[in-house]
């Protein structure tokens, strides 16, 4: 067995320094490339994703709030419109019913008037007919009863006074 060469407890050995420097740099590159770069990338990606999803969530919430406000406004407007329609319909119905009633009244009045007129006319016709008949009867009676000669003037006077009397009776 070859006895290993042993260095001094405290020496400065340039070869060891240079090799340790190389080793340290290699370890640095390994840690940087295989651990830090990879893990940092994943962590950054995750951070970005979380930020992104928060942003999206905020945006969605804002949108939802906007929509809710919009719908509220729309519903309010619709209610108002409905009330307006009901009110307009009520007014229209009122007007229409008033009109109908007025028309009916007018019609009824027309019918009554017509009826009155008719009655009046019929009455006149009847009176005239009666007058004519009475005149006829008087003439025929007079001519039959009194065989005496009467002038045309006297005749007429007689008839009229007769009719007057008839009317009074």
């Amino acid at each position, binding site marked *: 067995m070859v006895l*290993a060469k042993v*260095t001094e407890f405290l020496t400065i050995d340039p070869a060891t320094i240079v*090799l*340790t*420097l190389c080793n340290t740099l290699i370890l640095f590159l390994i*840690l940087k490339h295989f*651990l830090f770069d990879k893990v940092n990338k994943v962590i950054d990606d995750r951070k970005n994703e979380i930020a992104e999803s928060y942003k999206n969530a905020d945006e969605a919430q804002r949108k939802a709030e906007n929509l809710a406000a919009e719908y509220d406004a729309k519903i309010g407007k619709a209610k108002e419109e409905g009330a307006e329609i009901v009110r307009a319909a009520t007014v229209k119905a009122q007007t229409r019913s008033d009109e109908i009633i007025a028309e009916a009244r007018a019609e009824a009045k027309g019918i009554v008037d017509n009826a009155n007129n008719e009655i009046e006319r019929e009455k006149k016709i009847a009176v005239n007919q009666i007058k004519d008949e009475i005149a006829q009867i008087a003439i025929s009676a007079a001519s039959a009863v009194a065989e005496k000669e009467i002038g045309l003037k006297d005749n007429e006077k007689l008839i009229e006074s007769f009719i007057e009397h008839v009317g009074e009776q």
Partner: protein
Amino acid sequence: MDGIGQGPKVVFTLPIFGGIDITETIVIGWLIIVAVLLVCLYLTKGLSKKPTKKRQIVAEMFVGFVNNMVDTTMGKKWKRYAPYIATLLVYAVLGALVSLLGLRSMTADFNVPLTWALMTFILITYHKIRAGGVLGYAKGFASPIPVMLPLNLLSEVATPLSMAFRMFGNISGGAVITTLIYSALAGLSKLIHLSFEIGGIGLNAGQLFIPAVLSVYFDLFSGCIQAYIFATLTMVYVSSAADEGE
């Protein structure tokens, strides 16, 4: 006694430039690199935005821990330094903890902390020059009054040296103390007849439990805390060097 007062063994010699000695330190460094590479590849296998695997959580915890450390000590714009700080942490912690496997601590070789301290020193100088220009960097040594020049120069050199010696002293001191305790316990066991020999292998009852407890401090705690201190000092020095010129 084997190990005490000795540097790392030479594992083999490269037959170039008149023979370059490859010590235990370097070989252990390679082992750590391979182990870290495998662990990294395993941990980052199948990363997804919605983690489903435990290993991704572990990877993210570690990366998040270092990122957070760099963030709070250096600031947001220094995030690119996180892998370097992680390198120091991982290399220093694992380099110290290999002693638990019976290997020689990598950081108990003065050359290793010295290399890292020099790297930190280069970064400090680079950021000072970048922030204040060469002239501003030179002027910095003569501030606040020119009389301070020697003191400033001294403190500039003392920064990396103190960092290197702090780590080296702690880890190698721990190793020395552990070895001393082992030999002391062997002697003590023999003294109270609790030493047995089975087939040429000596068994000392006193060595069974006590070194494990002490190892928690000298290997585990010391190794981790020194790595943390080294990384923190690097962050503080480098970020304050960049702030100085502003």
